[in-house]
């Protein structure tokens, strides 16, 4: 882990409150370029919330979000073009084809203007052709190029996940946040996806992987962040993290604990763990 | 009721009938007006045919629904004139619809007799467009005269937002009366107590109600509810006979006065035949302004056809309409000329008060107002 350079993304003391519930409590963490980080924790620990805060879907109650050292806490989601993400509960554009899903992301904040869109013409056709080619490459990269012309609503679960990954890549982001992308994939697909994720790290992206499958975590990540009831439980390497007693107690099992954390309301979560 | 449209679509132009086109608001909120008008026109056609027709030929009414809407009126109009054998037209029920077809008449060379009070129907005069009822000005003139005679000059106005109500309201408020309140209502409103409350606060001598059906009926109901008990007057569209029955013994009725055309129970000599025919044809409602104008319109067209002679066509019908003089109809005594397409004036007005839940012609309207 490179702590000397500026972090690709940094959360500083982020708290996210939903009514009486504190989904994130004073969480600080960082993602670095070229590093795949896994974020794990029990159900309801705040993992998706963290992704929502980083990607701008949610504004934190307090604390700040930095990208490349710049504070962007209040920037709208659509302006955070350096940050791409997938959704735990799939959000593909169902009425578009698989290819068009990717094209939307490729063109969202660039491309010809409204006037040219109305007039059409060879310039537009040319741009369209180019972007389709590019989209197809991305689809091939995640392995669903052969589905390019299918309507996304007809995809089975597994392929929806891969499409979301392709769509995220299409933004040409610096940071990629993957929320349980491997869930619902067959072991074989998961294995291949792990390879893809590793290669993203190697390509210099800062990648955040949220997963419940430890095999996938081990296969993809060097860094590990563990959340528990909205609190940071561990940051460090994957290898050490998975052996950490606290992490085992809270998340992986083997033993139960009554340590409920400071938040009154979520005490009984502990029983669950 | 028959599906009139099915049979005539072919338009065979058979030489033993005269086809008269009619545009009417048969659907939409004011369907009652259009339907009564159509019923009246049909009754006239049937009566004329029973008496041997015109120039030995039968009349035939071809009706199109325009829902009282200007743009559908244009389609209806085009639908009617494409049948070359339609020789002249009557309609439409509402002024705005008539105005929408006004620009098309000269181009299609077809005369239209319009049962509308709306000022613009005859201003400017269009060669092909004739008015078949007293004008808004005439109604207003009659009311203003009467109020001045009665010394009730401090008045309030409640008018509907359609063309009839808006124009009447405007003319009244520009008159010499001392207008203390002008309130508006939708003709199909369901509650006007607020308007009446505001009016009551101004303490006028009289209330002038200018609204197409069913607006006036509601005023009648709501006035009692807010305790507004002053003389009320309306133009040719007042509460319907049904409204009067429903209102029962409301004290509001004691001082209600209508600019009218007929008293069904006590017709004028020129009206007797028509009223009898209308009553026979439609026993479920009393003849009203709409059925009466429908009836009178056909009478006028029939008279013009007769004048035009055996080989009447669209143009000669227009010419003879324009030269009609002193034709007695149920809606008044009509005379046209090249620069006057209005037909009737204030002498065709009949004053109607309410007695025992129905309209009665009164010769001394002022007495109703005190």
């Amino acid at each position, binding site marked *: 882990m490179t702590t000397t350079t500026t972090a690709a993304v940094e959360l500083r003391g982020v708290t996210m409150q939903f009514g009486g519930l504190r989904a994130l409590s004073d969480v600080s963490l960082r993602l670095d370029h070229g590093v795949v980080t896994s974020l794990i924790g029990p159900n309801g620990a705040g993992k998706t919330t963290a992704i929502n805060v980083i990607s701008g*879907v949610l504004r934190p109650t307090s604390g700040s979000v930095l990208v490349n050292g710049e504070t962007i806490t209040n920037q709208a989601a659509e302006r955070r073009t350096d940050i*791409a993400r997938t959704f735990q509960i799939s959000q593909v554009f169902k009425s578009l084809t698989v290819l068009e899903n990717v094209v939307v992301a490729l063109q969202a904040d660039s491309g010809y203007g*409204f006037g040219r869109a109305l007039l059409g013409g060879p310039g537009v056709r040319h741009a369209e052709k180019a972007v389709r080619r590019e989209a197809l490459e991305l689809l091939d990269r995640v392995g669903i190029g052969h589905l390019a*012309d299918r309507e996304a609503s007809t995809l089975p679960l597994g392929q929806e996940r891969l499409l979301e990954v392709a769509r995220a890549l*299409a933004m040409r982001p610096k940071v990629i946040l993957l929320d349980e992308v491997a869930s619902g994939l067959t072991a074989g697909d998961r294995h291949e996806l792990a390879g893809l994720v590793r290669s993203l790290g190697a390509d210099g992206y800062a990648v955040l992987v949220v997963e419940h499958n430890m095999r996938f975590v081990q296969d993809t990540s060097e860094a590990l962040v563990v959340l528990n009831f909205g609190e940071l439980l561990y940051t460090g390497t994957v290898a050490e993290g998975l052996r950490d007693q606290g992490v085992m107690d809270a998340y992986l099992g083997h033993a139960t604990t009554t340590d409920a954390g400071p938040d009154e309301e979520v005490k009984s979560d502990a029983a669950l763990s | 009721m028959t599906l009139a449209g099915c049979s005539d679509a072919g338009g065979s132009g058979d030489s033993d009938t005269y086809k008269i086109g009619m545009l009417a608001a048969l*659907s939409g909120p004011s369907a009652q007006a259009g339907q009564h008008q159509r019923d009246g026109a049909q009754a006239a056609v049937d009566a004329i045919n029973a008496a041997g027709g015109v120039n030995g030929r039968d009349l035939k009414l071809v009706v*199109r629904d325009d829902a009282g809407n200007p743009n559908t009126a244009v389609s209806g109009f085009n639908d009617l004139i494409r049948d070359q054998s339609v020789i002249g037209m009557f309609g439409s029920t509402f002024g*705005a619809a008539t105005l929408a077809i006004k*620009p098309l008449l000269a181009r299609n060379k077809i005369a239209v007799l319009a049962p509308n009070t*709306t000022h613009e129907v005859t201003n400017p005069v269009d060669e092909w467009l004739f008015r078949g009822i007293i004008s808004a000005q005439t109604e207003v003139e009659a009311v203003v005269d009467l109020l001045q005679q009665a010394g009730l000059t401090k008045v309030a106005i409640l008018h509907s937002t359609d063309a009839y109500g808006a124009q009447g309201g405007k003319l009244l408020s520009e008159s010499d009366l001392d207008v203390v309140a002008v309130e508006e209502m939708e003709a199909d409103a369901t509650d006007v107590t607020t308007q009446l409350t505001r009016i009551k606060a101004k303490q006028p001598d009289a209330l002038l109600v200018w609204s197409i059906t069913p607006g006036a009926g509601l005023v009648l109901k709501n006035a009692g509810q807010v305790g507004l008990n002053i003389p009320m007057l309306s133009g040719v569209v007042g509460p319907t006979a049904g409204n009067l029955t429903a209102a029962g013994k409301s004290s509001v009725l004691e001082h209600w006065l209508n600019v009218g055309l007929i008293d069904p129970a006590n017709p004028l000599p020129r009206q007797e035949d028509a009223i009898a025919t209308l009553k026979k044809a439609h026993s479920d409602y009393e003849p009203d302004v709409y059925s009466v104008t429908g009836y009178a319109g056909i009478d006028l067209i029939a008279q013009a056809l007769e004048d035009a002679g055996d080989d009447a066509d669209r143009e000669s019908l227009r010419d003879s309409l324009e030269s009609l003089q002193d034709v007695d109809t149920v809606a008044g005594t009509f005379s046209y000329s090249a620069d006057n397409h209005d037909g009737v004036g204030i002498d065709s007005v009949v004053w109607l008060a309410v007695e025992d839940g129905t309209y009665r012609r009164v010769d001394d309207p002022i007495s109703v107002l005190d």
Partner: protein
Amino acid sequence: MLRKASVGLVVAVALVAPLVVDLFWLNLLTLALIYMPMVIGLNVLFGKANLVSFGQGGFFAIGAYVSALLTLQRGWNVWLAMLVGCVAAVVIGYVIARPVLRLKGLSLAMATLAFGQMVFILVQQLDVTGGPVGLSGIPAPSAPGIDFLEPRNFYWLALAVAVLAFVIASNLARSRYGRMFHALADSEVASRSVGVRVDRVKTLAFCFAAGLAGVAGAMYAHYFSFISSDTFNLELSLLVVIMVVVGGMKDLWGAVVGTIAIFVMREYLRSYQEYSELVYGLLLILVFMFARGGITGTAKAVFRRLRGGTDSGGGPGAGDGAAAPVAAGPLPKQEVGR
């Protein structure tokens, strides 16, 4: 192939029709063509971006009155006035887009309905519009050698405008904006996350629809030469929605088909007097019960079935075997991770 053929057929019919039909049908077709841009606009707004507007009648009225008044009272050239009428609709559309587009679904329907009704009331109440008595004598457009009072000539004009509206709308639908409309309709949060400026894109769609309604209104005023407030009531706005949905929202052709179908049906039924509304209502019910995709959607579905169901209904080129679920599902992923 088939598409090209049917487009050719439509064009041929549009070109030949005015030469063979009588005045009644010519007027009906002209009217349909006049309304068509408005329906096309709503087809894009509703069918693509899933933003419903029950207030298009308001923009139609703005186009009509602005253009009519500029010519009647200011003596402007008709063409210029129509253009300004359209621009006025866009500007008003822009002003209300921001606040109104934060709403969705039924709330949006209500808000736009309210807007349309507010315009209606203003038109009814203001002196300058002539209220229910209306404005008469609105001039027809003029061009050297062409008399637009001649109904056939106005037909050509209306046809030209409708075609233009169709072409730019179909360009738009196939452009990156068209895709973004779909995307934000499917998932706003995902759209934002891939960088779609949702508010801006929605506003563009809304203004586009407003502008086309404005054009239609301006054409309407100069065609009839008479307008009055009665025309611009709620039923007009509802009628536009009905045309869009009956024609089919998924396809721009739906706007064309829907406009003509509803016009022809309504006007043709008028001779049935009181019964016309009954038939109209029944037809509406039947269309929505049995032809969910509207006329075009149903026609497509039927056609697909006739062809033996090899098309998965996906985008262009989806008609080959690769789209069949059985074949497509389990293909091995050779290239993952390369």
